[in-house]
C-alpha cells in the first residue's frame, strides 16, 4: 500500500482492521523516497469476500493513496529475523552449519547463546525456524514481510518520480 506519511495514519489503518475484526498477521511500514508518502506491507488472512472487503475498506480511507492485493500475482517478498539460540559449545557447530546453509550471519555470541540474522522469502524464513527449533530457540524477532510487485505491475506515488 502507498499511504500518506502523516501522524495518525498507522493508527487509522490498524483501527480499521480491529474495528471490523480483520486479521493483521504482520505489518511493516516506512517512508519512501517521496517523504510525503510511506509504503506499507500488511499480511492478512481471510476468505475471498473478506479480502475484497479489506482492499475496499483500505481504499476508502482518506490517507490511503493506493492499495494492491499481491496474493495472486507475481511479487518479490523478504523478511528479516533475529534468532537467539541456546548454544553451548557442543550444539554450536550444528547451529552454525544450518545458518551457513541459509546464508545467515552470526550477529551476537555469548557463553551459552548465539544470535543469528537471516533474511529471505517467507518459505526460507519458515524453513530455518523449523530446522532450528529442536536445537533450542530462546527468542525470535521478525520484521514482518515487505513485498513489492515484479517491475511491470508496481504502484507509484501520485504525481512524483520515485
Amino acid at each position, binding site marked *: 500500500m502507498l499511504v500518506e506519511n502523516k501522524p495518525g495514519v498507522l*493508527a487509522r489503518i490498524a483501527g480499521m482492521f480491529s474495528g471490523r475484526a480483520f486479521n493483521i498477521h504482520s505489518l511493516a511500514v516506512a517512508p519512501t523516497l517521496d517523504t510525503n508518502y510511506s509504503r506499507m506491507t500488511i499480511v492478512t488472512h481471510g476468505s475471498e469476500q473478506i479480502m475484497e472487503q479489506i482492499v475496499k475498506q483500505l*481504499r476508502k480511507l*482518506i490517507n490511503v493513496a493506493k492499495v494492491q492485493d499481491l496474493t495472486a500475482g507475481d511479487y518479490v517478498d523478504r523478511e528479516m529475523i533475529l534468532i537467539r539460540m541456546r548454544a553451548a559449545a557442543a550444539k554450536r557447530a550444528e547451529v552454525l552449519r544450518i545458518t551457513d546453509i541459509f546464508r545467515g550471519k552470526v550477529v551476537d555470541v555469548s557463553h551459552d547463546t548465539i544470535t543469528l540474522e537471516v533474511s529471505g522469502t517467507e518459505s526460507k524464513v519458515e524453513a530455518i525456524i523449523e530446522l532450528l527449533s529442536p536445537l533450542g530457540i530462546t527468542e525470535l524477532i521478525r520484521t514482518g514481510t515487505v513485498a513489492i510487485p515484479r517491475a511491470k505491475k508496481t504502484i507509484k506515488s*501520485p504525481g512524483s518520480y520515485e
Partner: protein
Amino acid sequence: MDTIFGYPGGAVIDIFDALVTKFQRDFNFILVRHEQAAVHAADGYARATGKPGVCLVTSGPGGTNTVTGLATAYMDSIPVVVFTGQVPTPLIGNDAFQEADIVGITRPCTKHNYLVSHVNELARTVKEAFIIAGTGRPGPVLVDLPKDVAQAKANFEYPRSVDIPTYKPTLKPHIPSIKRAADLIAQARRPVIYAGGGVITSGAHRELKTLAEMVGSPVTMTLMGLGCFPGTHPLSLGMLGMHGTYRANMAVDNCDLLLAIGARFDDRVTGKVEDFAKGAKIVHVDIDPTSIQKNIKVEVPIVADARQALAKLIEALNKRGYEAADREKLKQWHATLTVWRNEQRLRFDRTTEIIKPQYVVEKLYELTEGNAIITTEVGQNQMWAAQYYLFDRPRTFLSSGGLGTMGYGFPAAIGAQVAFPDKLVIDIAGDGSIQMNIQELATVATYELPVKIAILNNGYLGMVRQWQERFYDRVYAHTDIMAPPDFVKLAEAYGAVGLRARTAREVEPVIRQGLETKGPVVMDFIVEREEGVYPMVPAGGSVKDIILV
C-alpha cells in the same frame, strides 16, 4: 453554510469572541444545552437541507459529548463538520485540564478527522473538511483546534479549491454494467426497486419516479429512504424489513429482479442473508464500493452516484426500446401484489377508549396533510411513525436508522426548524427517548422555535419490552419506566406549552390545539401500555417467520 450549533468552553473562548465581535452578521449561532444535542441538531439541519451541518464545541468533555452524535451521523452518512477546541499544542499529551485525545477517540466514527497543528494549515484543513463531509458518500468530519492555533495570527488565504489526491469518489457509472442492468430490467417479470437513503442524498427522487413509472415496477423503501419515492404513489409498497409491511417483504421474497439503489442491505432489511431475495437477480447501485458485495452477492454491481446511474439507466432503457407492451408482462405480478396488500394491511384495534399509539400517528398525518417534517426518537415510536405517516417528498423524515440513537429526534427537530422557520416540524417520541435530551426545551424556548413534540407515553421502553414479551417470557427487566416526570408541568417549567390527552376522543382536539399554538408545544399522549409493532420479522429470521399480530 450559515448556521452553527454549539456550546462554549475555555479552549474555544477566542473563537466565540470572534463570532460575537466580528462575525455576528455572518453566522446564525444556536446555543444548545448539551454538546450531543449540538451534533444531532447539525445532523437534522443537514438531513433537512442537504447542506453540511456545523458544530462548535470545546475540548475535553465538550468533545467527548459529541461522540454519540458523530457515530449517529456516521452510520447514516450525514454531512456534519464538528469543530472541537483542544488544549494548546505544547500541552497535548500531557493530561492537561479538559484535554482529550478526541481525534483518537473519534477515528472509528468519523469519515475523517484532523488535528490542526499550525495556523498555516488551518484554511486548507477547513476547506478539505467540508469537501470530505459533503461529497461521495457523505459523513461526519471532526476538526480539532488547539487554543494556541486558534489564537495565532496569519494571513488569511482561503484556497478557492483544493485537490485531495487520495480521495476521488466514483460518480459516473460504468456504461456496460448499465446496459446489462437495463437488459435484466426489461426481461424481468417480477421486478422490485429497493430504494434507500442514497437516493435522497443524491437528489435522485425524480429520476427514481420516472424509472419506476416507465417500467411499472413497484418500489419499496428503507427507513432511511422514506420520502425518496412518494408513499402515496400506487407503486409504493411501503417500507421493507423487520417492521416493514407484509406486501413489501413478500414482494422482495418473490421477485425475480431486485434493483437496489442507494441502500446497503442492512441486517434489519435482509434478516437471514441466505434467504433474502433468493430467487432474484440483484442489481446494486451504490456510491461506496465497500457496500457492494459486503453481505449479499449481486449480479450487476454499479459504483456510481444514484442520480447519474438512474439517468443512464433510463437512457439505456429508452435506447433499447421499452414500451407499454413490456409493462403488460407485469400484470400478473401487480395482481399478486394487490392480493398481498389486501391480505395483511397494517392494522390496530380502533374500538378502545384507551389511546392506541398508531392512532396518534395516523391523526398527525391526517391533520398535517402529510406536509410536516417528522423527526423520531428510537424504538416503537420510530417504527409507528415510519408505518403510519406517509412521506411523499424527500428530506421530510429524519430518523436515526443505523445507530438507533434515543434522544436524536428532539435536537434534530431543532436543527430542521432552524433551517425552515416557517415549516411545521414534529418530533414523534417515546417517554424514554424524550428524556435523553429534554434539556433542549430551554433551547426551543430561548429561540422561540415552534417545534411540536408528540410523546407516545406508555411508561415503558417499548421496543425492548416487546422483545421481552415475545422472546424472554415477559420478564420486563428494567424496561418499566412508569414514573415522573409530568411532561405537561415539565414543558411549562421551560416556558413551553404542555397538553395532555388520556382518551382516544381527546387525541384530535389536542393535536389541533398543539398545531395551532404558536411556539414550542409538548403533547403528552397517554397510550396503551403494552402495544406491539407489527409485522415483525425476528432478527436473523426470514419472511416465512413473519409475525403478523
